[in-house]
């Protein structure tokens, strides 16, 4: 068809390297041009970037919160212990053999043996019933093993399975693994994570809508120029490119603002958190966003910017047609 012939006419002027160079240069010109358009409307641009930055700060901060919560719960997970109460009749020798055998378990990191006598001594000291306990004919406390699972078997389900296995040992009367608080904590953490994901999706959607609306206004503002461009043969792709680049710039700058805001917030919170953790003699340190997370934040912001502008240009640019006036 003749229109297709016209389409390729211009390619006769340049070889393929020339065409690629011209195309890259055109993209660069349009990208820089769209940045220039943002620069020419500083108030609107700054306001939009700040709104985007703040919108992205919230999910990023919540992610930071979830990440640090997970770090804390993982620390507690790894500290979980299984307590094995041995039968009262178990001799010291049998108990020592059992300790050696359990230490060979691949799931076990460490085993501490507390003999019945040692347990009674500690109980006398700690319980305040020292003198009363003197009247007992025999030691009522069993020998105890404190089993620390490896990191892999510290998780609730794996630790439960290990407990069942250890309870199969003949000398063991009963085992105890207080996982209820851990399960509750994990459930709360999972709930928070779900809420954060939900909020993050809503905020990302708002970013798309903000950028979409900003680009829509920019398109309507340049309606006449777009009509002229169409009149002289510009394709929709050519016309929409600067607006897509504008979306990318908004995303990039919004992501940058969000990164700074998250860093400031993390620094502000970590001061108060340090005071709190010092009270519990904890070594917990709030970790900020890693390089990878910052890169993901930037890429997400750019992607949302591009998506918002893409939706807007698809909807509005085609609707603008030149008039003969």
């Amino acid at each position, binding site marked *: 068809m003749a*229109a297709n012939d016209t389409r390729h006419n211009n390619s006769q002027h340049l070889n393929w390297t020339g065409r690629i160079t011209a195309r890259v240069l055109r993209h660069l010109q349009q990208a820089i041009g769209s940045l220039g358009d943002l620069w020419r409307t500083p108030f609107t641009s700054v306001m939009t970037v700040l709104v985007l930055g703040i919108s992205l700060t919230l999910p990023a901060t919540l992610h930071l919160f979830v990440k640090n919560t997970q770090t804390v719960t993982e620390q507690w997970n790894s500290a979980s212990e299984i307590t094995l109460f041995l039968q009262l009749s178990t001799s010291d020798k049998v108990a020592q053999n059992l300790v050696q055998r359990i230490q060979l378990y691949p799931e076990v990191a460490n085993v501490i043996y507390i003999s019945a006598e040692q347990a009674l001594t500690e109980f006398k000291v700690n319980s305040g019933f020292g003198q009363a306990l003197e009247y007992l004919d025999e030691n009522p406390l069993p020998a105890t093993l404190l089993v620390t699972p490896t990191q892999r078997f510290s998780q609730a389900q794996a630790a439960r399975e290990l407990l069942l296995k250890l309870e199969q040992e003949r000398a063991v009367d009963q085992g105890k693994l207080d996982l209820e608080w851990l399960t509750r904590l994990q459930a709360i953490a999972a709930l928070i994570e779900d809420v954060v994901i939900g909020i993050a999706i809503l905020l990302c959607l708002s970013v798309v809508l903000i950028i979409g609306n900003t680009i829509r206004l920019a398109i309507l503002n340049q309606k006449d120029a777009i009509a*002229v461009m169409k*009149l002289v043969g*510009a394709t929709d792709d050519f016309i929409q490119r600067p607006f897509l680049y504008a979306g990318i710039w908004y995303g990039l700058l919004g992501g940058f603002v969000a990164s700074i805001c998250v860093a400031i917030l993390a620094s502000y919170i970590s001061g108060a958190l340090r005071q709190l953790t010092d009270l519990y003699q904890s070594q917990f340190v709030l970790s900020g966003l890693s390089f990878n997370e910052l890169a993901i934040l930037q890429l997400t912001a750019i992607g949302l910017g591009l998506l918002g502008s893409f939706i807007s240009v698809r909807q509005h640019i085609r609707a603008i047609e*030149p008039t*003969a006036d």
Partner: protein
Amino acid sequence: MIRFNNVSKTYPGGFLALKKVSFTIAPGEMAFLTGHSGAGKSTLLKLMSVMEKPTVGSIEINGTELSTIKYAQVPYVRRGIGMIFQSHNLLPDRTVFDNVALPLIIEGYSHKETRKRVEAALDKVHLTSKLKCFPNMLSGGEQQRVGIARAIVNKPPILLADEPTGNLDPKLSLDIIRLFEEFNDMGISVLIATHDLGLIARMRYRTLTLKQGHMITDGIVDGLQTISERNGS
């Protein structure tokens, strides 16, 4: 080449703007299109520049059938037509150079080739000195000539002009028409829509006359009086 074959155009609401119009403008031909307001001139130009599609009939521009054209092909058809309007349609925030360069940038010409062609086009319309000016710094006649430079910069085979001399004095109008003659001498088909019957009478080119959507005359017209009579004014 422009070929209209039994073209009718009815707008939504039932207004019949063109009725079975047929004509051909051969490559390298120059012609005028005239008629009263509402005669169908603007509709005919809109159909040629693919702003509208015909309700009935076929239109062929540079070998492309417009009645069945796909949306994605429209820009490529428009690149083959230089369009000039009474209102100039210049981008106010761009310099004369950027306005004239627009079709070349769209088509992906190199910077060097673009500069060369823009300078040549502005030289044709005697505006080389206004390269860095913005449209609001130019007179109406100069703005019209920038519009013409933009229309011819990519050497289209067809030039359409809608009232190109509408706001200009007789001397400037004649200068503009002389420019069109120069382009026509280079082999470009030129169709000028105008109310200026005096101009048409002086130039003695083929004239297509529309009245209430019908093509009532097609040929060289002798003198202003004849035109006026045929238009019924």
